[in-house]
């Protein structure tokens, strides 16, 4: 069947192809997740097929006993928009739930960190007052280090960060730019917690 191209069809094909390329670019740039992009791709393809294969829309309208063919196109468009909105609402509900869960866990973790810092401060104070008990132990210095690491914001060395002649992998201790000399605070927490527990056990 020979495709008869008129100006309107060319315009519609142009829009369809444009939509597919736009969706594709959004996917490859990471601005649209492929799972959502698929939906738009399918709709764009259906859009093109309806134009490229003559008689599809008319045949479907006849089958559904719709006298005015463009009504079918509008109805399908509206159905797609309603379906898409419903899908988006489900996604939003899911995200809201996850967001709430994250906020709750964040606030509880924040409370735990505050408590740990308070405890560390108490141990450091005791260590400073009673040098015979704590200042000889490795725990005291470890707590002091951890306290500094947890409370001090990392200082970013601008000179170092702009020096492309001295890349990260070539630095002597392989440390990251802005590292303040202590292990990552998140990695360090479990060890600090374990040490704090051991204090009561008389291990230190």
């Amino acid at each position, binding site marked *: 069947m020979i495709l008869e191209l008129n100006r309107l069809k060319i315009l519609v094909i142009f829009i369809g192809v444009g939509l597919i390329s736009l969706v594709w670019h959004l996917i490859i740039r990471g601005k649209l997740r492929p799972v959502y992009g698929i939906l738009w791709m399918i709709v764009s393809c259906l859009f093109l097929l309806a134009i490229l294969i003559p008689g599809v829309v008319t045949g479907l309208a006849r089958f559904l006993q719709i006298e005015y063919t463009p009504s079918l196109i509008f109805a399908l468009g509206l159905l797609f928009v309603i379906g898409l909105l419903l899908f988006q609402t489900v996604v939003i509900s899911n995200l809201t739930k996850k967001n709430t869960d994250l906020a709750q866990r964040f606030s509880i973790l*924040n*409370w735990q960190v505050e408590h740990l810092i308070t405890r560390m401060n108490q141990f450091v104070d005791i260590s400073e007052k009673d040098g015979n008990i704590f200042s000889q132990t490795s725990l005291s210095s470890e707590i002091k280090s951890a306290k500094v690491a947890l409370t001090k914001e990392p200082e970013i060395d601008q000179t170092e960060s702009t020096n492309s002649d001295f890349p990260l992998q070539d630095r002597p201790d392989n440390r990251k730019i802005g590292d303040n000399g202590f292990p990552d605070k998140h990695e360090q927490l479990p060890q600090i917690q374990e040490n704090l527990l051991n204090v*009561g056990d008389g291990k230190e």
Partner: protein
Amino acid sequence: MKQKIDTPVNIVPENNILVTVLAYNEGASIEAVINRIKRILPEATIAVINDGSSDDTSEVARRTGIEVIDLPFNLGIGGAMQTGLKFGLIQNFEYIVRMDGDGQHPPEEIPKLLDPVMHGEADIAVGTRFSGPDTFGYKASLPRRIGIYLFSRLASRYSGREVTDATCSFQVLNAKAAKFLDNNMEQDHPEVDGWILLGRAGYTVKEIPVGIEPRRKGASSINQWRALYFIIKVGLTALAARSRRFNE
């Protein structure tokens, strides 16, 4: 011998009771509420769940020396309540009291609610304002009473037991019930939803007559314009709770 500590910070007292006080912009009343709880339950751990307040609720609560969980933004009553449950479960508390920070829930009534849960007669004890003498002179407005009546009928019908005050949020839960609600509750005004889900799952829920004080400071989160929206929303949630799937 080393004490077993499952969480980094152990704050569980001997009596295993955590009192969670939900507060949103309750800086004016929170201190009095905390002091009253301390007098009634001096051994219990008290935690204020500060639901993203924009006033000095957090600072005032911290000055009293209790635990304060600051939510980064306002989650609403259900989200704040769930935070209290999560906190209690993470810290391994056996009994969790849930009350509001506006002073309407008198701490003097907590032992009445604790009693059946601690004696194993109920998994959750919920206060009711309408089946006993109200010693604190609480008077609900007519629209509110109508709403409470409708929700109580709905909760009675679908939970399989008579409920007189389905919207009362003054409760004591054991860890089992707290875990169930944490896993399954809806976050929009979860009381009615909770009644139905707990009933369907076979938990023992007991209503205990308690006095409720009139609000002294601040304003209720439900104004007259939101009342209709509230009724529709809670009604829909409760109907969904009737057939919603839940995790044990």
